[in-house]
């Protein structure tokens, strides 16, 4: 072995020994500083390389990501449509379940469910159009209800549809019974959709919250259908009757499904009403 190769061997051994001692932790803080510098350099190179790699491969990924994004967006739209449809079905099912409960709790009447498909074109009138008609044994004058209370009565019928006059219609007038006050009165609609009570005797005490039911007088409606509650009462001593405003039990702006009472036939009391004869 010549002197040059011996020198190289010694240098390698010394450096290798120092490295081994450094990795073995013999140099303490000095080796930690060294390893930190190494790690920093390693990290710097690694992140730059990854960035460069992303830059080089990005176009291909963007195309595939865009395709994937479009697929997912289409899927989301489809699922949103399904969610809306299912929510509608749930709402419909809730309404129908409530109506079934109502019909079970009132077994004396037979009902025919109908969907509300339209409203009167004129703002002066409060009518709805339902999708059941004479083919479903719907007849003029039949009462229409929901599980919340009275809606109105059938005003006109064709084969597969009918027009229902709501109790809020200005031409509507219903004989009612105030349960707490044990008295009768007349419920009238208005052009704004508000309903009010009139012809309440001055001798009775009517309070806010009193329940209003149909009285059955006049034969236009069956008795004991819920209409709503008294909100405010107006009593003036110089008037013959008291008046009251009413909160209807039914939300007429959100009518979707109604029940027609098909076993009720309105009674025409016209012939029984007194005819005024001219005095001699």
């Amino acid at each position, binding site marked *: 072995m010549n002197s040059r190769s011996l020198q190289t061997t010694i240098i390698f051994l010394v450096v290798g020994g120092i490295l081994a001692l450094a990795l073995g932790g013999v140099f303490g803080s000095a080796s930690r500083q060294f390893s930190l510098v190494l790690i920093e350099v390693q990290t710097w190179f690694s992140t730059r390389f990854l960035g460069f790699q992303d830059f080089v491969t990005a176009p291909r990924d963007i195309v595939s990501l865009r395709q994937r994004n479009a697929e997912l967006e289409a899927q989301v739209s489809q699922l949103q449509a399904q969610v809306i449809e299912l929510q509608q079905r749930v709402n419909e099912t809730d309404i129908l379940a409530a109506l079934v409960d109502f019909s079970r709790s009132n077994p004396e009447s037979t009902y025919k469910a109908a969907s509300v498909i339209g409203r009167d074109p004129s*703002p002066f009138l409060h009518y709805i159009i339902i999708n059941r008609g004479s083919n479903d044994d719907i007849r003029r004058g039949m009462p229409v209800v929901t599980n919340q209370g009275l809606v109105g009565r059938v005003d006109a019928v064709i084969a597969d549809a009918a027009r229902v006059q709501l109790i809020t219609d200005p*031409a509507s007038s219903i004989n009612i019974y105030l349960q707490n006050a044990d008295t009768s009165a007349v419920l009238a609609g208005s052009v704004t959709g508000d309903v009010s009570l009139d012809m309440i005797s001055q001798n009775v005490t009517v309070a806010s919250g009193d329940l209003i039911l149909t009285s059955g007088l006049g034969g236009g409606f069956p008795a004991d259908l819920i209409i709503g509650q008294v909100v405010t009462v107006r009593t003036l001593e110089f008037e013959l009757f008291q008046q009251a405003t009413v909160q209807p039990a039914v939300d007429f702006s959100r009518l979707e499904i109604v029940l027609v009472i098909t076993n009720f036939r309105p009674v025409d009391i016209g012939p029984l009403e007194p005819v005024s004869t001219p005095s001699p």
Partner: protein
Amino acid sequence: MRNLIAFPLILVVVILQTSIISQVRLLSGYADLPFLVIAAWALQERVESSLHWGAVTCLIVGFVSGMPWPILVLGYFSVIFLARTFQKRVWQAPLLAMFSVVFVGTLFIHLLSFVVLRLLGTTFSISDVLGLVTLPSLLLNMLICIPIYTLMRDLSFWVYPLEEFE
């Protein structure tokens, strides 16, 4: 023959009115789409069949609505008469004519409805009718009369195409 488009068109308009427009309320009023359609149609210069369209509208609306027939017939035919008069007098400013017809027509139809329903025994408060029904309806009618006018003008070009001379 192209005038027969009146039947399906008015039918669709009445369906839209009963199912959508009558749900879009401003206070207690809403727009009257059949009235706007026949008013816009009668204002078109080329149109010769506005009375027929009025008759179809009366027929279909009368079938659906609880409103007495005389109100519809008198109201819609008066609007057509008014529109034809305006079309001849204010022919250089069709949109102004449309606004005028809608303004006067809405007030007239509401006044007619008010009077006839009162005569038939329905009780109304005139302040309620004016403030909560007529004025909101008038505003909504004025708002949507421009797109209706444009659509009906395009339709009139299709129904009454200009004759080409060589």
